[in-house]
């Protein structure tokens, strides 16, 4: 943010723009960058998903568009989806039907504001950044419930009800799993959390103590459930609920669901990178010139792991889903929290 405003000041010449104007311009630029990152997520990861799915199932996936391995397939899909007719069912609740994709998209975009990609490269360096990210991304629940209810379609309603139950349930292990990190970092500010992990791979919070490692695994699994992906994709099970809460959506409105879904997939990976895996920190000497690339590389690896899981594991049943959350993850997360506190007092010396 500071870098962006400084760039604007240099372009316009010192003193010609007021600090307020610079601030608004900087914020607008960051919002544009983050929206482009979200669009890039959807483009890159839909292609990656289809290629990985293809290779796991012993086939090629998209091969035609764009000469090399169907690389332009997502662009072709996007152009096609732009030309699709927009159908709002006559029985639907029009207002909420139209509003729902916006809520999903804006919830996701808001959360991106607090992700630190590199030192100083964060749109809103909030002191309660971690809490803010969870708050903003929980708007997804409202968007899903809104779309499912407004569609006036049984499949959508089932999908939305399941989605809401699943996302609010898994938010608890998710939020509990990062508390041990806050213990160590002593701050909710995302930049502070990343800075506290610099100086070697053993400083990464996932590797500080065994409890934190288990916390990382809990976070990772709960985040897959948060973004409704297999094995936790009950809200949009295509084989039983058609498409779940977005059954009735078509054209560009549907595209917003897709965009938000892939953006959230990358978002939870970025949070995991910043909170557990050292952010832009790395053990390779001479790689300090591109901290944002290191950050993105870690997040992309996590996304690839999620894609791998999706095409390897079958879907859970809804009772198993709730069982895993309430009877396994939450007790385990509480144990990890208590264990991390004891570990800190017993083994860590603070200056």
């Amino acid at each position, binding site marked *: 943010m500071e870098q962006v405003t400084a760039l604007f000041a240099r372009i316009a010449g010192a003193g010609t723009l007021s600090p307020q104007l610079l601030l608004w311009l900087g914020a607008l630029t960051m919002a544009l960058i983050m929206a482009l990152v979200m669009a890039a997520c959807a483009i890159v990861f839909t292609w990656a998903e289809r290629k990985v799915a293809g290779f796991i199932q012993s086939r090629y996936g998209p091969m035609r568009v764009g000469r090399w391995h169907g690389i332009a397939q997502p662009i072709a899909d996007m152009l096609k989806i732009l030309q699709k007719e927009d159908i709002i069912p006559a029985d639907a609740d029009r207002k909420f039907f139209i509003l729902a994709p916006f809520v999903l998209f804006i919830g996701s975009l808001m959360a991106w504001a607090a992700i630190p990609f590199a030192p100083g490269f964060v749109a809103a360096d909030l002191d309660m950044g971690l809490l803010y990210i969870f708050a903003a991304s929980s708007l997804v629940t409202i968007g899903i419930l809104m779309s499912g209810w407004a569609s006036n379609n049984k499949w959508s309603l089932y999908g939305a009800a399941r989605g809401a139950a699943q996302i609010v349930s898994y938010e608890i292990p998710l939020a*509990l799993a990062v508390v041990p990190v806050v213990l160590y970092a002593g701050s909710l500010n995302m930049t502070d959390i990343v800075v506290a992990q610099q100086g070697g791979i053993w400083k990464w919070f996932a590797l500080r103590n065994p409890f934190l490692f288990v916390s990382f695994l809990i976070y990772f699994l709960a985040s897959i459930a948060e973004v409704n992906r297999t094995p936790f994709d009950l809200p949009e099970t295509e084989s039983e609920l058609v498409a779940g809460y977005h059954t009735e959506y078509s054209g560009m409105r549907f595209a917003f669901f897709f965009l938000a879904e892939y953006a959230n997939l990358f978002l939870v990976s970025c949070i995991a990178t910043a909170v557990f895996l050292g952010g832009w920190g790395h053990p390779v000497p001479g790689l300090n010139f591109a901290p944002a690339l290191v950050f993105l590389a870690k997040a992309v690896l996590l996304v690839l792991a999620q894609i791998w899981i999706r095409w390897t594991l079958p879907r859970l049943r809804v009772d198993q889903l709730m069982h895993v959350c309430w009877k396994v993850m939450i007790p385990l997360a509480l144990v990890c929290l208590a264990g991390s506190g004891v570990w*800190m007092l017993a083994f860590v010396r603070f200056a």
Partner: protein
Amino acid sequence: MIPACPLAAVSTGMHADFATVLIFILFGVFFGLLALGIARLLRPHNPHPEKLVTYECGELPQGSAWVRFNVRFYLIALFFIVFDVEVIFLYPWAVVFRQLAAAPGLGLLALLEMLLFLAILVVGLAYVWAKGDLDWVKSLTARPAGEEVAGE
């Protein structure tokens, strides 16, 4: 000094950060409208009563989908409220724990207090667990005789 425009008061610090959040929201609305606007120019628009029927496996829909939710969803929502509020209380403790741990004696006290808090939370979890409210599929026969069956 009262600024003419409230937004003009924003310069740096926390206000600036939340101003950025506001810009993100506004930009999100703009981006959505822009994308839908472009699509509007490109897409066909041929409404037909058959097209506007709600999808239900190709049949005409039977009744409305606006029905009552299963009560399990309300139970989950209730648990969520309780546990989420507890988690929110954990965050401030977690932020200051590091400072307290550095002071002699205080760290142990802070840890014990939080373990007590967690213990109360765990008692609540154990209670709903024992009552069977965490089971998604509740069998009516497995319950001990005489216990009331809630919400099915």
